[in-house]
């Protein structure tokens, strides 16, 4: 897709990137216990006996988490494995009560799939590329250590312990930071559409481990490093850029890349070694004997498929068929919330083009100014539809609509109420308009002459003057008609 190359002293270098994305599965309770998954609770308030790994406690799989993983797999056209199994990944750490993480190494629930990405979603002509997905498996999250609570001790918060994650592993098909960014954005968009993960990277519900290696174009794969737990798209792109350059510099100065785990420091914009392969854990994976294999039957798979929403690519095609431009269709479908907002407007009877234009210019502009997201919009689709309805039926003009919208944002009042109260209703009173036109023509005789001698552009001037004289409340179509007649 993009020819991303690093210029080294010995020539060009190609970058090979694979991503392992950890996405927290949207569910009420944890993967193997009934505890709540709620974010931001008091430390250790969402911890069951199972989460704390008390003696004799056993995991019981939460079907909803498996369902969400299967639906996600279906959304990326992946192979769904009817038979999968949980394995234990053994290591000691204070945030891991069992002394092992229940994960899926040997038989993941979702096999190969793919995601099509485009470097510039909003440009319909931007080239696309398919990024292979190797697998999606389901696993437990660990707890959290708190080092700032006591001068010599660390505290442990187990609220996250046992929360369900999907690990979505890409093939090393990504070849630039931009592609990596596009992939992560598209993946997040799909997860949000499916409703299997909120994609909230700030709260840690989505994070990426970034595998990077470099090679001479078309050459043998180089040794890779893995940069762990990158929690924003921007950081990930910076980490790749830094890490690829570091590897090139290292190799060209006679060194060798060592396989290791690294951390990205967003303050210094660099990656740092965390542990090398020699220190790597031997996780001693083996099938979890507390759990039976996961077997999915036809009815379960059918329900998963039937419950899938329309996905972004299909939506975009449908919007274009509604008469939207490719650009608008792409923007509206990039995020599930935008598409749902747009569709809410359509459901309220708003015309597709009117809805898309208003949403993309007026609403986005207003939210931008307010520094709010679509979710936080002070105006909901129903209220917006009321406003757009007033424009559509000629009650108010487009320019009055802008004013009304601003008042709606300020006061929270409904569009009709504002129009009523402020007397903003558009007038169709041709007599009144004709009277104003006559006055304007009298005051601008020179311009009338110029217009009549062929300077068509001046027509806009007369429209503007008339509208101004009518305080914006005249029907623009009627102004047009009357002006044409008067100016001859």
């Amino acid at each position, binding site marked *: 897709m993009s020819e991303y190359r690093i210029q080294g002293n010995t020539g060009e270098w190609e970058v090979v990137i694979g991503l392992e994305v950890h996405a927290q599965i949207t569910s009420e309770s944890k993967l193997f216990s009934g505890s709540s998954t709620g974010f931001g609770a008091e430390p250790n308030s969402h911890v069951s006996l199972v989460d704390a790994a008390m003696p004799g406690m056993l995991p019981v799989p939460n079907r909803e988490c498996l369902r969400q993983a299967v639906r996600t797999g279906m959304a990326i056209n992946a192979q769904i494995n009817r038979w999968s199994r949980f394995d234990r990944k053994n290591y000691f750490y204070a945030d891991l009560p069992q002394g092992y993480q229940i994960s899926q190494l040997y038989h993941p629930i979702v096999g190969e799939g793919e995601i099509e990405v485009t470097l510039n979603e909003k440009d319909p002509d931007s080239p696309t590329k398919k990024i292979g997905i190797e697998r999606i498996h389901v696993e437990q999250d660990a707890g959290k250590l708190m080092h700032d609570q006591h001068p010599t001790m660390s505290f442990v918060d187990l609220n996250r312990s046992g929360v369900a994650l999907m690990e979505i592993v890409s093939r090393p098909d990504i070849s630039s930071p931009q592609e990596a960014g596009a992939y992560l954005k598209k993946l997040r968009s799909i997860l949000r559409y499916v409703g299997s993960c909120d994609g909230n990277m700030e709260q840690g519900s989505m994070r990426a481990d970034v595998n990077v290696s470099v090679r001479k174009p078309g050459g043998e794969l180089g040794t890779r490093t893995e940069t762990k737990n990158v929690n924003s798209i921007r950081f990930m792109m910076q980490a790749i850029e830094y890490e690829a350059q570091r590897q090139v510099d290292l190799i060209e100065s006679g060194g060798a890349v060592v396989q290791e785990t690294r951390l990205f420091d967003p303050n210094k914009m660099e990656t740092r070694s965390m542990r090398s392969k020699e220190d790597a854990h031997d996780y*001693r994976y083996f099938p979890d004997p507390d759990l039976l294999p996961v077997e999915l039957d036809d009815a379960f798979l059918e329900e998963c498929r039937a419950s899938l929403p329309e996905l972004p690519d299909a939506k975009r095609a449908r919007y274009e068929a509604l008469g939207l431009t490719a650009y608008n269709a792409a923007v509206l479908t990039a995020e599930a919330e935008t598409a749902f907002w747009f569709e809410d407007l359509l459901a309220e009877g708003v015309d597709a083009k009117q809805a898309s234009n208003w949403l993309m210019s007026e609403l986005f502009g207003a939210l931008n100014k307010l520094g709010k997201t679509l979710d936080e919009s002070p105006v909901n689709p129903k209220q917006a539809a009321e406003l757009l309805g007033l424009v559509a039926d000629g009650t108010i003009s487009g320019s009055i609509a802008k004013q009304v919208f601003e008042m709606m944002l300020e006061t929270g009042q409904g569009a009709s109420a504002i129009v009523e109260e402020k007397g903003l209703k558009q007038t169709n009173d041709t007599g009144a308009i004709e009277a104003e036109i006559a006055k304007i023509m009298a005051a601008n005789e020179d311009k009338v002459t110029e217009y009549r001698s062929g300077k068509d552009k001046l027509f806009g001037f007369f429209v503007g003057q008339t509208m101004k004289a009518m305080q914006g409340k005249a029907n623009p179509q009627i102004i047009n008609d009357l002006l044409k007649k008067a100016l001859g």
Partner: protein
Amino acid sequence: MTDFSRLGVAAIRDGVANGEFKAVEVAEALNTRVAGAKALNAFIVETPEMAVAAAQAVDADRAAGKPLGKMAGVPIGMKDLFCTEGVQTTAASHMLEGFVPTYESTVSANLWKAGAGMLGKLNLDQFAMGSSNETSYFGNVISPWRRNDGGNAALAPGGSSGGSSSAIAARLCPAATGTDTGGSIRQPAAFVGISGIKPTYGRCSRWGVVAFASSLDQAGPMARDVRDCAIMLEAMAGFDPKDSTSLDLPVPAWEAALNSDLKGKRIGIPREYRLDGIDEDIAKMWDNGIAWLKDAGAEIVDISLPHTKYALPAYYIIAPAEASSNLARYDGVRFGLRDLPEGAGLQDMYAATRAAGFGEEVRRRIMIGTYVLSAGFYDAYYTQAQKVRALIARDFENAWASCDLILAPTAPSAAFGLGEKNADPLSMYLNDVFAVPASLAGLPAMSVPGGLDKQGLPLGLQIIGKALDEQAVLNAGLAIEQRSGFTAEAGEWW
């Protein structure tokens, strides 16, 4: 006056139900027996007040005309591997010394619901790892049995459920819970001349039982006769949604269906169990067992379980592998022992805590398990062992084509003296040689007394049945019990 220590589960239950005596009388009598038998070291914790409270509740229910449970008025011992709410639960390890669960295991809760009461928590091999009870942090249990050589050598009660076996044989309680991972119910039952059944894997919930090897661990009852085992197993078993490996099946009425007429039943005698150099007394007992079953109407057939010799090595890979992971949670962070040397970091705390908390045998098995799961060794050990396990299960499947039950010795010898096998872990592991195949295959298996050896010590006969066919196993056990005339008891020397 009734000697309550001589009554079994059925007799106590029926006597209480019929109003012959009060449950409280039984509880008090057995509390006294327990208190007087400290020399056996069978109990880690005694809970006389709980035995009395449960008995009082049963007496009150009876007085009020309420229906009584399957175990109403029966005081029992609880192996200290079952978590009991408000009562210290240690798995006989220093690691859990002082640990008081806030929850009750499903199996023990089922028993309390059925009207049983708890005399105390029974000693065992540490984390159920051992065949002699010598690995307990709280000192070894001593068998009430003595050899007939006039010596006073202290004998092993078997393991890991050695507190259970010793207490029942010494008539401190009519019955007790056991758990069986590779013979831990059957071998101790055989060593002290009582009965015990490991049901089909999944019959009894593992929830709240301190885990040793999850794919093998199975709880079961130990008692002085087959009927008592049937009654207690009915009370213990049942589907538990909190255990994913629990079987979602109704609990059969085993006691009501007991029938020692074995007409039409074919009993398989596995030739591979007739090891070279088999103990003469064991061979003789086995022959007696065959004759008794024939007498009960069964047909005897020779069968082959060709992979038997690989069972023990496979078991000693799979069980330690699972244990090495199951025991990782004992890390000093959240409960149990914490050894935090001055200035120590997290890794130091792990090392110090686990070195101090686990006994030698537990450490050995954690090391074995860690080794066999390590990168580079996994396929050679764990994967191979799993294949062997599948072959063992297939051996049994093939055998069921020609027989309904299998008869074999429970253990290769009678009880040995404490300390006799400590030096060589392998000779200790060999004790499980006949018990382990049924564990690997998840099949129901029972030990019933088969006679005494030349030293006057009990020997056990093992009956292995098809999955879910506990009834046939119990019936054959009953047929043997009715013919063996086993009435020997340990002298009361303590």
